[in-house]
């Protein structure tokens, strides 16, 4: 059967499924090299302690254990510390002090996986416990233990960041008729992709070449970082090859460099053998980058009629022991300044202070673009609080305050230029789909009977697709992305991208973009990513940047190919280029549609009969620097019923109307939204990592950290509006994270909506049955 080119807007079934449904994917732990050694890690039981001694004798006495590596060993090679993306540094292994529980203390190298674990159990470490601080507010108090003795600046305060016009905001608050203030804590959570992190490092001493198979969302950036960090040891970038194999979920957790990766590289260089490191789930949850942990105080000012005028936000950001957030370099608080959301504020001011505590480092996304969920959740909670205080319907309040469609491109008071939007349309569609008016009537009746039912809205605006190179870089690397398309003589295609799919379906969607632009069937296009020896340089996949940046690069590279194909077609058809017209898949002479050359015929000619004066071949590469970010948006409405005996929150319905601009593959987009909604549900009702006063982690395994199962997860209802991005070559915006950003506030708002009449104004997420039961009991609703 002849295959055809589908292109944009088609629910093309995924190409990558073929191997995954047969169990033939190649994830990191599936790779086994001859002579490979295994590395395992000794971790600290204390959150803050001095290391008095590390005794490795019993470990190395175990047959098969080859070495125990400590911080002092690494220090000899200048490798005990590594730089973070945020101009801080992080211990690979401590020389004398540990700063959080489960921190890496020593590495054991062995011939087999189980023997490495035996070795870890046999290493004895003597610690002297030191005072612990886990609350960032306490860490800022005078007399708090100073955690980072390695820093010149003897304080737990890392940085202060602010944006907006403080004087204008203060004036607006002085003049405001209505003012609302609320403390909001957005707890520490963990991405918990079902595959943990790991790598295999293979150092080939004769060639001086390092190959690093690694669970990374950004292979090229990793290659450059390795070259910069280990250049003094003879690792040069042309002899470093990073390969990201199939990745079992990323969500931001596979952006950073963890000590285990560095240790595997060091161990391979030390032994000249391949070294594998695979972390287990508890290591993954207890030591790898966390997300969120923002202590926010937010204030809104409004007129009596409910018109919003000003926003002030003050946040303390808990960064753990090292500032290892994964943000663009100029943005220590990420894109938190999207916090004016979907509303037309006259003035706004936001400030964030980063703080060290005795907790693991991080500050990564949790399926969201750089602190956007924190911003969106805050503003959507606050909008609901103001609406309720004024006795206004939260939908009516939003419709009144939305940035109007004619105001785009919209300049926000905190400095962003929103590309396009129609917030009213999305909310109205969601209201219609869920039957908003009927639900409000039902709620009123139920309330009379003492039944607890709530309706929550979240009308979020995202900011994704980082980003324009004038503003966005990571360690100086501009945040462009890339595509290279090679059309072979027979018209078949290999296309390589600077990004790396972790489940998003790039092998399919990128092929659709090329099919759309060139008329070549998706079946004839192979998409490759993740191998730095073959793919063009790119910054990777996170922050919903694949479609906005690399997808655009794919379209631009395809258009370069089409330009050359036109010249070849003119030569073949003996016509002038200007007399040719393009119809998907072929050029024809205007007015004579029979005189045509297909892209496949043109490809063959490019290698067999190219015109004089034109180079042979049909290939192109594009490094796409987006002119702006993209601003996907949506309106979500959630209906909850609360058991007034147990406090259990049951999601009855959840309608999500998303607008991500033009859609490449509606099936994949819907799948991304389903997954994103579930990762929005998770922190709203279930997930949180807490610490006791001694810094012991609570919630460090899947026994205690509750990922939603199929039973808790509702049957999501999705719909869409389409407002294309005016600056993206395909009008697309990106969608992988929208739902994670938008969903938590819809759920929390629904719960508070159900309880507002009882005098409940706010509950911090996760809204557990215990928290709800407690307020119900305090208010005499339950025993």
């Amino acid at each position: 059967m002849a295959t055809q080119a589908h292109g944009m807007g088609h629910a093309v079934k995924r190409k990558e499924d073929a191997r995954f449904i047969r169990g033939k994917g190649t994830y990191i732990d599936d790779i086994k090299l001859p002579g490979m050694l295994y590395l395992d890690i000794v971790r600290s039981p204390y959150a803050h302690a001095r290391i008095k001694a590390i005794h490795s004798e019993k470990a190395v006495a175990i047959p098969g254990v080859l070495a125990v590596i400590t911080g002092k060993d690494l220090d000899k090679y200048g490798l005990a510390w590594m730089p973070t993306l945020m101009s801080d540094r992080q211990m690979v292994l401590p020389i004398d002090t540990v700063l959080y529980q489960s921190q890496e203390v020593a590495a054991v190298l062995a011939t087999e996986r189980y023997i490495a674990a035996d070795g870890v159990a046999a290493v004895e470490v003597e610690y002297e416990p030191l005072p612990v601080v886990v609350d960032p507010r306490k860490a800022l108090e005078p007399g708090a233990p100073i955690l980072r003795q390695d820093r010149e600046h003897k304080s737990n305060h890392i940085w202060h960041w602010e944006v907006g016009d403080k004087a204008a905001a203060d004036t607006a608050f002085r003049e405001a008729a209505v003012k609302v203030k609320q403390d909001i804590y957005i707890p520490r959570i963990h991405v918990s992709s079902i595959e943990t992190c790991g790598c295999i490092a293979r150092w080939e001493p004769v060639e001086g070449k390092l190959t690093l198979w690694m669970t990374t969302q950004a292979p090229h950036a990793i290659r450059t970082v390795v070259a910069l960090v280990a250049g003094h040891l003879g690792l040069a970038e042309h002899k470093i090859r990073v390969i990201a194999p199939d990745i079992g979920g990323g969500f931001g957790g596979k952006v950073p460099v963890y000590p285990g990766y560095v240790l595997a590289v060091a161990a391979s260089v030390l032994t000249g053998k391949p070294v594998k490191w695979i972390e287990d789930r508890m290591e993954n949850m207890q030591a790898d980058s966390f997300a969120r942990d923002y202590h926010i105080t937010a204030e809104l000012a409004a007129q009596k009629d409910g018109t919003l005028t000003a926003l002030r936000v003050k946040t303390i950001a808990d960064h753990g022991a090292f500032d290892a957030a994964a943000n663009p370099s100029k943005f220590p608080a990420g894109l938190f300044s999207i916090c004016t959301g979907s509303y037309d504020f006259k003035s706004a001011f936001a400030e964030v202070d980063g703080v060290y505590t005795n907790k693991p480092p991080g500050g990564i996304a949790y399926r969201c673009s750089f602190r956007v969920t924190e911003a969106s959740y805050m503003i959507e909670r606050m909008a609901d609080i103001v609406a309720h205080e004024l006795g206004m319907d939260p939908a009516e309040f939003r419709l009144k305050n939305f940035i109007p469609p004619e105001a785009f491109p919209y300049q926000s008071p905190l400095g962003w230029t929103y590309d396009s939007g129609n917030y009213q349309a999305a909310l109205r569609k969601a209201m219609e789909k869920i039957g908003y008016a009927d639900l409000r009537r039902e709620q009123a009746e139920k309330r009379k009977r003492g039944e607890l039912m709530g309706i929550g809205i979240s009308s979020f605006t995202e900011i994704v697709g980082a980003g324009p190179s004038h503003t966005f870089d990571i360690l100086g690397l501009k945040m462009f992305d890339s595509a290279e398309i090679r059309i072979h003589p027979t018209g078949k295609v290999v296309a390589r991208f600077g990004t790396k799919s972790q489940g998003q379906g790039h092998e399919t969607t990128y092929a659709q973009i090329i099919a759309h632009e060139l008329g070549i069937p998706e079946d004839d296009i192979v998409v490759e990513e993740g191998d730095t020896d073959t793919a063009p340089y790119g910054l990777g996949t996170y922050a919903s940047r694949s479609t906005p940046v690399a997808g655009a690069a794919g379209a631009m590279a395809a258009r370069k190919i089409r330009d050359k194909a036109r010249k070849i077609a003119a030569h073949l058809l003996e016509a002038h280029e200007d007399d040719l017209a393009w119809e998907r898949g072929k050029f024809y002479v205007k007015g004579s549609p029979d005189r045509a050359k297909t892209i496949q015929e043109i490809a063959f000619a490019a290698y067999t009969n190219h015109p004089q004066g034109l180079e042979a071949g049909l290939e192109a590469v594009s490094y796409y620097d987006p002119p702006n970010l993209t601003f996907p948006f949506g309106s979500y409405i959630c209906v909850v019923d609360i058991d007034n005996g147990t406090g259990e929150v049951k999601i009855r319905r959840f309608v999500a109307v998303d607008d991500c601009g033009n859609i490449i593959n509606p099936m994949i987009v819907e799948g991304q939204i389903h997954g994103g909604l579930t990762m929005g549900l998770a922190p709203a009702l279930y997930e949180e990592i807490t610490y006791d006063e001694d810094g012991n982690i609570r919630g460090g395994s899947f026994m205690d950290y509750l990922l939603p199962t199929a039973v808790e997860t509702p049957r999501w209802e999705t719909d869409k509006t389409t407002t294309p991005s005016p600056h993206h070559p395909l009008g697309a915006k990106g969608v992988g994270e929208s739902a994670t950003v938008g969903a938590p506030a819809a759920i929390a708002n629904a719960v508070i909506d159900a309880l507002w009449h009882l005098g409940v104004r706010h509950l911090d997420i996760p809204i557990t049955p215990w928290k709800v039961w407690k307020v119900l009991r305090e208010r005499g609703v339950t025993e």
Partner: protein
Amino acid sequence: MSEVASRISVAVNGTAHHAEVEPRLLLVHFLREVLSLTGTHIGCDTTNCGACTVLMDGRPVKSCTIFAVQADGREVMTVEGLARDGQLHPIQEGFHEQHGLQCGFCTPGMMMTGYALLQRTPNPSEAEIRWAISGNLCRCTGYVNIVEAIKHAAEKMRSAPAPAGGRS
């Protein structure tokens, strides 16, 4: 390898395997490392995630919580045993057709659980499907399409039972 080794015979996907294993070797490592059947994955240490689900004598088990020696004399079926003679099993077809997978890491375990459900409940309700897979975590899909995938397989299997499809 420790000094104590046990001889085991396990039929995996219909093929008999004889091996000497450490008593502490987990079934999942036996499958992945000894037999090189890497389709069965490991996602947690606490028997919660279900990525390692295989069938033992037809029942879904979490192979990270079973020692290889416990599989001695038994029949094990893994994701690699679903397709027969190049023909996908309906459960595999369902996951592809209904976009029931994204990163693919939980997929083998999810399919094995779905397969086992359909063996005993050919026409499951949505609630039955959701409870059946509640021991298998997925972080990508939000489960909606996994439920659809299992329904798709159920329908297909009822209308045309798979020929030799997946024996355990």
